[in-house]
C-alpha cells in the first residue's frame, strides 16, 4: 500500500503471518501534533507564505468517486493540467469509502492521514468534524492570502466556517425535476401537498443522500424547526415516496417513469441535452422561486506534508480554466464570478440558477443537524 504507511515495516513477522501486517508508528508524521498546537495559541500567522515554496513532490488529493471515475470526469483533466503547470509535482487521487468520515475516524484513532487536500466537503461535513473532533479540527485554517484566486469567488458562496478551513470550488442547486406532460410546474412547496401532486413526488432519504438532506434543510428553512415535520406529514399524506439515494430515486425510479417528479439538481437539462433525452420529462421547477444551494468546498489537512503544493492546488482549482472544466465535467456551477470563467453556450442555456438560493449555514446546522435528520427519519420509518 502506501509508502508512508509502511515505513519501517519489518518482514517476516511470524505473529501476523501476512507480510506487512506490523508497521512501526511515528516517523515523518510527527509534526502533525505540533500543527494543532500552534493553532491553539493563535499568536503566529497561519501558514505564512514561504520565500521559496517547495513545489516538488507527491500531492495526495482525496475526493469522491465521480470526480475521478465518472464518464468524462474532471479528475483526470485536473491531474494532467496541474502536473503540466508544476512539472516537479505529482498529483495522486485517492477516494475514501465513506468520504470525510474516514478521515474523522482516522483522526479519532490516531491513524495516519496520507492525504494533503480534501476536495468535496459540504458545510455539514464541517459540522460533523466539529461535533466529533475538537472544534476547528482535521482541516487547517487557510491563509487565504496565499490563494490569489480566492478573491474571485462569487458573493454568497461563503461556506460560513468560523475556522476558515474551506473554500468553495463549485456549487449545485437542489430543485424539482418534473415531467410536464403529467404535472404542472409547482409554484410553491405548499403546492406539493395539494391533490394535484398526489403520489407524484420522489424524494431521497436525508440520512444517506446529499440531495435528500438538502431538500430536508430547504423545508426546514421554509417552515422552521417547529413546522417542518408538519409539512412532511402533509407530504406523506399526499403520497411522497422517500427512496434511499439520488441514484435509486432518479436512475431507477424516475427514469423508469414511476413518478412524474423528483428532487434533483438544477443542471439536469445539461444531461438531458447531452444524451438526447426527451426534454419534456426534464423540466426544472423552483418552488417558492428558490433552490437549495449546496456549495462544495476544498481544504487542506492539518497534517499535510506537501503544504506549499496544497496551497498551489487550491489556487489552481479556482483558476479560470479549471473552473470551466470542473463546472462542465462535474455539471455544477462554478464558484468564481461570471467574468472569471468562460462556459459553453449550451451549459449556460441548460443549467438553471434559482431566483433565490437558500442554504442553512454552519452556525444553525451546528448541534442541530443530526437531531433534525433523525426526528424526520423516525417520522417515516418503523411503522
Amino acid at each position: 500500500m502506501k509508502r508512508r504507511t509502511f515505513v519501517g515495516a519489518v518482514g517476516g513477522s511470524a505473529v501476523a503471518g501476512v507480510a506487512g501486517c506490523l508497521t512501526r508508528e511515528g516517523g515523518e508524521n510527527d509534526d502533525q501534533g505540533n500543527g494543532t498546537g500552534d493553532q491553539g495559541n493563535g499568536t503566529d500567522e497561519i501558514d505564512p507564505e514561504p520565500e521559496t515554496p517547495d513545489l516538488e513532490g507527491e500531492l495526495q488529493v482525496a475526493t469522491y468517486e465521480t470526480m475521478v471515475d465518472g464518464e468524462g470526469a474532471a479528475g483526470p483533466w485536473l491531474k494532467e493540467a496541474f502536473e503540466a503547470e508544476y512539472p516537479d509535482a505529482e498529483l495522486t487521487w485517492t477516494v475514501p469509502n465513506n468520504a470525510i468520515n474516514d478521515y474523522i475516524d482516522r483522526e479519532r484513532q490516531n491513524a495516519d492521514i496520507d492525504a494533503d487536500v480534501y476536495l468535496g466537503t459540504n458545510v455539514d461535513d464541517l459540522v460533523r468534524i466539529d461535533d466529533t473532533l475538537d472544534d476547528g479540527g482535521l482541516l487547517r485554517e487557510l491563509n487565504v492570502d496565499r490563494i490569489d484566486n480566492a478573491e474571485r469567488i462569487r458573493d454568497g458562496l461563503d461556506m460560513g466556517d468560523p475556522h476558515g478551513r474551506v473554500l468553495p470550488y463549485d456549487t449545485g442547486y437542489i430543485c424539482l425535476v418534473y415531467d410536464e406532460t403529467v404535472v404542472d410546474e409547482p409554484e410553491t412547496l405548499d403546492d406539493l401537498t395539494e391533490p394535484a401532486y398526489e403520489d407524484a413526488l420522489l424524494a431521497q432519504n436525508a440520512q444517506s443522500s446529499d440531495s435528500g438532506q438538502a431538500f430536508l434543510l430547504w423545508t426546514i428553512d421554509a417552515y422552521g424547526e417547529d413546522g417542518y415535520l408538519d409539512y412532511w406529514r402533509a407530504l406523506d399524506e399526499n403520497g411522497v415516496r422517500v427512496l434511499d439515494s439520488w441514484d435509486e430515486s432518479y436512475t431507477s425510479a424516475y427514469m423508469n417513469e414511476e413518478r412524474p417528479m423528483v428532487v434533483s439538481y438544477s443542471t439536469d437539462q445539461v444531461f438531458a441535452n447531452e444524451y438526447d433525452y426527451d426534454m419534456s420529462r426534464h423540466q426544472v421547477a423552483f418552488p417558492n422561486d428558490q433552490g437549495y444551494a449546496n456549495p462544495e468546498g476544498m481544504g487542506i489537512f492539518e497534517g499535510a506534508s506537501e503544504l506549499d503544493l496544497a496551497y498551489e492546488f487550491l489556487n489552481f482549482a479556482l483558476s479560470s480554466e479549471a473552473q470551466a472544466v470542473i463546472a462542465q465535467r462535474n455539471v455544477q456551477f462554478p464558484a468564481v464570478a461570471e467574468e472569471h470563467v468562460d462556459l459553453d453556450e449550451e451549459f449556460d442555456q441548460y443549467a438553471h440558477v434559482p431566483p433565490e438560493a437558500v442554504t442553512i449555514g454552519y452556525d444553525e446546522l451546528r448541534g442541530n443537524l443530526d437531531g433534525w435528520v433523525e426526528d424526520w427519519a423516525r417520522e417515516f420509518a418503523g411503522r
Partner: protein
Amino acid sequence: MSRPRESDRFVRLRKRSAGARRWLERHALALTAVATAGVLAVMLYLPVGVVFVNAAFDDGGATLAFFREVLTDPFYVGALADVFAEPLAVRSHLESLVGWLAAISISVSLEYPIPGVSLPIPWPSLEVPAVRKGLFGFTAYQAVLSTIASVALGLPAASVLANYEFRGRRTLRSLTILPFVLPGIMVAVGFYAMFGQAGTLNQLLGVAGLGPYPFIEWNPLAIVIVAHAFYNAPLVARVTVAAWESVDVRSVETARSLGASPRRAFRDVVVPQLLPAVLTGALLTFIFTFMTFPIVLALGGLQLATVEVWIYDRVRQLAYSEAATLAVLETILSLGLTYAYLRYESAQSGLARAAAAPSRKPLFPDLRTALSPRRLAIVGYGLITLVVFVGPMASLVVGSVTDGGGFTLRHYAFLLERQLEGADYQTLPWVAIRNSLVFGVATLAVAVPMGVVVSVVTVRAGRGGTIVDTLAMLPLAVSGVVFGIGLLQGLVFGISLPGGWRFQVTGAVAIVAAHAVAAYPFVTRNVSPLLSNLDPAMVESARALGASRYRALRDVELPLVASGVVAGAAFAFAISIGEFSSTVILASGSQTYTMPVAVERYLGRRSGPAIAMGTVLLVVTAASFVVVDRVGGRFER
C-alpha cells in the same frame, strides 16, 4: 562425496519426507482447525469486537445504559418497550395483553382481490388492533414474509431440478445461484425495469390490452418481498437440491416394496431427509432478510426501513455506541435462532445411508404426459420464474444496450475506452474481472477446508458442538455495516501495539480472508446435515483399521457428502464474487477492486456504464458457475 553415501541420504530423506507426510496426515485436521481459528480471530472476532466494545463501554467504564436506551424506546421495540422498561410489572403487562386480545374481531366483507376486475369475493377479515411493531418488529415481520416467499418459490425449483431430466438441466442448476451475486443497486434497477410503470411486464400486459399497473407503488412491501425471494429462493433451491440428490433411493424402494404409496413413501422417507436442508435455507433466508439493507430502501423507501438501515445511519453519524448496541441485539437474535435450529439439526442425525442418487424422469417425454396436471403445474411455475427471475436480469441486459429509448453500444464503448485509456487510479474493467475470478478461486480454496473442518469438529460433539457451531455462524449473524466498520478501524487503520508497533491487514490477502470468513458458513451448513446423517460406525471402522482421522474424512466421509461440499463450494465462490461491503473497504486505494465494486464506482449521473459493467458481471459469473459446477460434478457421484 561418493555415490553410496548420496543414495543413503536420499533414502533417509525419503523416509523423513514420508514421516513428515504421515505426521501431516495425522495432524491435518488439527492444523486446519488451528488455521481456521486464526483466520476467524483476525478477520472476524477482532473487527467485530472492536465495534461491539462501543456498546458496552462508555468512557472506559462498562455500562448497560445503551441497551436500556434502545430496549425502552418504542421506536425500536414497539409495544415491548413497556415490558423492558418495567420487567417486573407482570400484572399490568398481562392486563394490556388481555385487553388487546379482547379487541380482536372477525368480520366478513366483500373484496375485489384482482385489481381492475370487478369480481366480488367474500373475504373474512381479521380485525386486530394495531400493535406498534417498532423497528425490530417490522424487520422481523418482513423477514418472515420474505422467508415464506423464498421457500415457496425455491422448493418447486428444487423438486424439478432433482426429479426431472431435461435438456440444459445441469446448466440451469448451475445458474440458479446467479441472482445471489448481483449488487443491490442492480437488482433495484432490474426490478424497476421489469415491474415499473413503463417496465417490461406492463408492456407485455399492454399487448393483451391490460394495464399499465403501478406494481411497485401498489404495495412496496410486496415488491421488496419478491426482491428478497429473487435473492434467496435460489439459495433455498440450491441447498435443497443438494440434499435431494443425496437421498438414498434404496430406502424409498424399501418403503414402496413394503406397500407404501408413492405419496406415503415421499412423506415418510424423503421429507425427513429434506427437512434439515429446507430449514437451513429458510434460516439463512431469514437471517439475510433480517439484515437486509439496500434493497428495502431502493424499492420500498424509508417507510420500510429495517434495523440495519438504522445501524448504517448511526455509523454515518459516527454514533458508534448506538450502532453497536443495535448490532449486538440483531446478532443475539440471529444467533439465538441459529442455535435453536442447530439443536434441531443435530437431533435429526443417526440414519445410516450411503447415497444412491434417485433417478430422474424425463420432463416432457411425450405430449400426453406433458398435459398431465403435474407437468402443467411445472409449466406454470416456469412462467412465474420467468417473470420473477429472468425478467429483472433480462431487463438489465436490455438496459445495458439502450439509452433514452434507442439501441446503443455507448455503455460498452465506455468500458472498452476505460480499459484501453484509463489511468491507474481509475477503475479498469479487466482488472475488476481478473480480481473477482482470482479472489473467487482463492476463497473457494480457503473456505471449503474451513467449512468442512467446522462441520467435522462440531457434528459429533453434542451440545458443546452446537454452541461452537452457533458461534461459527457469526459471520452471517453480524451486521454487514458493523463488520465493515470493524474491518476499517481494526485492520485498515490498524491497532496500536505496545512498543510503537501497529497491526494492519489490507490488500488481496485480507480480501480473500474476509471473503472466506463470509463464505465458510455456507459450506458448513451444506455439509453438516449430510455429515451428521452418516453412520458413525463407518468412520469408526476406518479408524480401527488404522486410518488417520484425516484419511477417514477424505476417503470415507467426504465422498458420501460430496453433493453438500460442491453446493457449499459454489456458494463460497458466489459469496466472493458478490461480496461488496468489506471488499470496498479493504480495496480502498489499491488495485484490488472487484466487479461489484466497479459497478458501484461507475454509477454516476447516468446508470448506463454501471449497468453495462453489471451485465459483464452477470456473464462472467454465469460462465464461471457452469465451470464450477461441471468441475465440482466430477466429485459427486
